[in-house]
């Protein structure tokens, strides 16, 4: 079971790394020291505490020794921090010692929790997400304080990669726990595929952050803020206008009663129109520079291509070779080449986009037949919301007839003048079939009649 222990070690180390990255970030943001050094220190401390917790909490009677070891670990970590921290020449030694001790205790506590935690995929996802969120919180606090740490992008990338690998390793372990060793997927192609996917995501993130850069965002926010301000000014004008009118009314009433609180001539007049705000556009701000865009796009495309290559290579390595004569035989058959599949995908995407654009361009149905189809789609949606979706393979006629048949028997019988439900359903279905499948042209009168029928059809 060597491979299983390897996986356990990998899960523990990656978990420690996920915790260590944000802890290192926190320490670096607070102290202004090297993020890499502090992260390595945090990872090692958390991992050591996790190993201690895992080894020594199994079985009764080992709890005291585990606590002792954890305490020793805290002291050692504090000593390391103290020794390293002297170089920073902090004015207060006591403050420095307390700070290092608290930090080391926190790291050891995280490690103990990590070691005691089960290696379930859900727990790993939670840990990875928490690590990333806490790193972002550290960055938010740093930005709030006016700091722009240079290590931030590296820390984000590291957190994503480590989190992705942690989840993948733990999921792999959970997936293959019940599978015999010979039948298991090999681990490393999956990790390669995950690394490729993470790389692709990071590349997409980098590309998007170049496209939607800080200046673009600030400009967009400026526009939004201007519009908001304009709207608020308008609202304020309306409120003021209404208030002034009210005051004038009250003044008139007081004037009738010969109560003169203020000379009416001194009451200020309302402005003729609300003040129009000028949008404050950051003049002269260059949002995109040509070279930067080209480099970014090329770099992102290369990274995405590289990630896809990783994934492709990894998936190719999943092929299972027969271990012995007469063992399980596997064969794989390509249903379509990658280029033809990509072509088909692009064509499908194009068709969908064209359809969407066409729908956007049109404000209403152009032909009566389209109106009928649209009204029928609305009717079907209404039926679906009422708990009667059209099952696959059922005709419109059958579906409407079933909807009529499924009406509660307690409902009062329809009046004699109203059309009977089955004929109503058949009428709707017949018109729809004409509009949908027949070459027969639907005229506007038929379409209007269909609208009326569809409205009267109660789900």
């Amino acid at each position, binding site marked *: 079971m060597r491979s299983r222990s390897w996986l356990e070690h990998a899960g523990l180390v990656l978990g420690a790394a996920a915790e260590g990255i944000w802890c290192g970030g926190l320490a670096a943001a607070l102290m202004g020291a090297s993020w890499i050094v502090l992260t390595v220190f945090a990872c090692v401390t958390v991992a050591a505490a996790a190993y201690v917790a895992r080894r020594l909490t199994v079985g009764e009677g080992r709890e005291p020794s585990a606590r002792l070891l954890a305490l020793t670990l805290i002291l050692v970590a504090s000593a390391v921090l103290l020794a390293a921290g002297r170089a920073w020449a902090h004015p207060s030694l006591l403050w420095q010692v307390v700070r290092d001790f608290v930090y080391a205790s926190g790291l050891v506590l995280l490690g103990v929790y990590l070691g005691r935690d089960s290696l379930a995929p859900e727990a790993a996802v939670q840990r990875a997400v928490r690590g990333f969120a806490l790193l972002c919180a550290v960055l938010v606090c740093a930005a709030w304080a006016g700091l722009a740490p240079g290590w931030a992008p590296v820390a984000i990338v590291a957190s994503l990669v480590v989190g992705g690998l942690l989840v993948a390793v733990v999921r792999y372990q959970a997936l293959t726990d019940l599978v015999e060793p010979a039948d298991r*997927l090999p681990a490393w192609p999956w990790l390669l595929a995950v690394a490729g996917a993470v790389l692709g995501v990071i590349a997409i993130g980098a590309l998007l952050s170049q496209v939607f850069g800080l200046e673009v965002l600030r400009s967009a926010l400026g526009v939004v803020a201007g519009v908001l301000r304009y709207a608020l000014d308008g609202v304020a004008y309306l409120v003021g206008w209404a208030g002034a009118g009210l005051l004038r009314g009250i003044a008139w009433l007081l004037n009738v009663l010969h109560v003169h609180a203020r000379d009416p001539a001194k009451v200020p007049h309302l402005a003729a129109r609300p003040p129009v705000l000028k949008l404050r556009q950051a003049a002269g701000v260059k949002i995109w520079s040509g070279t930067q865009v080209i480099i970014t796009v090329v770099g992102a495309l290369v990274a995405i291509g590289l990630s896809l290559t990783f994934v492709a290579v990894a998936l190719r390595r*999943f092929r299972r070779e027969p271990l012995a004569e007469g063992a399980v035989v596997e*064969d794989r058959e390509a249903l379509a080449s990658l280029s033809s599949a990509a072509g088909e995908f692009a064509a499908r995407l194009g068709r969908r986009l064209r359809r969407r654009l066409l729908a956007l361009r049109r404000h209403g149905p152009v032909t009566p037949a389209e109106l009928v189809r649209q009204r029928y789609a609305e009717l079907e949606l209404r039926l679906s919301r009422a708990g009667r979706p059209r099952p696959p393979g059922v005709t419109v006629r059958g579906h409407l007839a079933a909807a009529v048949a499924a009406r509660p028997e307690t409902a009062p019988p329809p009046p004699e003048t109203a059309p009977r439900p089955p004929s109503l359903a058949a009428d709707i279905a017949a018109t729809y079939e004409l509009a949908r499948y027949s070459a027969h042209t639907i005229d506007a009168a038929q379409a209007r009649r269909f609208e009326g029928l569809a409205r009267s059809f109660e789900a």
Partner: protein
Amino acid sequence: MRLRSILLAGLAGLVVAALLHSSALVFASLTASALAALVVATRRRVFTGFNFERTLSRRVVSWGSELEITVSVTNAKLLPLVWMRVRDEWPAGLEPLGFALRPLSHLGRQAFIQTISVRWYERLRRRYRVRCLERGLHRFGPVELEAGDPFGIAGVERTLEARQEFAVLPKVLGVPGFDLLLGHPLAEETVTHSLAHDPTALRGIRAYRPGDPMRAINWRATARSGALQTNEFDPASLAAVRLLLDVGSLHKAWEGIDAELMEILCVVAASLATAFAAHGHGVGLASNACLTREWRAVDMEPEQGALPEVLETLARLRPYTVRDFGSVLAAELAEESSRADCVVVTATLRPGVRGHLAQLRSERPTRVVYVGNPKEDEAPLVDIVVPADFDWRSSDALPLLA
């Protein structure tokens, strides 16, 4: 999580990043949003264009032979299935060859658990071979599938019924002492009455008797003689045998069931049926056992070529009785038109059965094959004994002791 929520969360992150003037937070927001969107989109699409099939090489398998099971997984979309766990329920009594099955807690089932990975537009086929070592009507399925995004952040589960059945016939052993069953060793009997006729073996013509089938009338001879003449054929089989199988293996019904003894009884019945068929006899079967997922009594008339059906019925027998064996014998006695020889296969002769059996022996040629050691009061009715402790799984011949 939905894509709309991700979009809103991403926008919130971007607003915070813009307000704080932090490029790193912009990058973090966009990357996290892209990752979450990838996960959600993958989850949503993971079973699109997906198909799972399990095919069996045969529906009826003889005991101890191999069955090939092909599991086919098709991924007809651009998104690869980086990981997928297949958990299929297979019946017990299958010995995997070159792979492993895990026994399940509920009786009679095994779990087939495999992890696979399928690329874009790819069909993966795996052929597994098993050896069938348990008689019965067995069932595969249902199948539980789990797949998800490449990272393994979230899995999506789907259950498919995919139920398939196949029958494993009882083991058929050679019968070296077959002559003991005929009663007259090395003397083959010719019967005048036949259950089936061979239309190619014309024996002659005779005058028409009411009830003769129209197609048997010889029109030429009728025209020549001026009276209806009927063709007469040789029988297709020399004799017919009806196996009467008693699966009530214990004296008292409430004493429970003896599954191993039931298997021996089925093996003995299958071996005898095969031996009789090999000697040209028509074979039938009646039993007090119930069939899998059916509650009708087993009652098959002897027919030429009915051996596969008899064996398949034996495969489907369960160790529970739906009626008393005495009523099986009584029904046989009541059927006056039947002229078939009877072979009773039993592991016990309860007092209620003995009277019917004695009557059957007096009226029809009947042999009693007893599995186990007959008691003193049972011995006079027993012709042949099969030891209950013989290892039928490793043996090739059925020991018949007179």
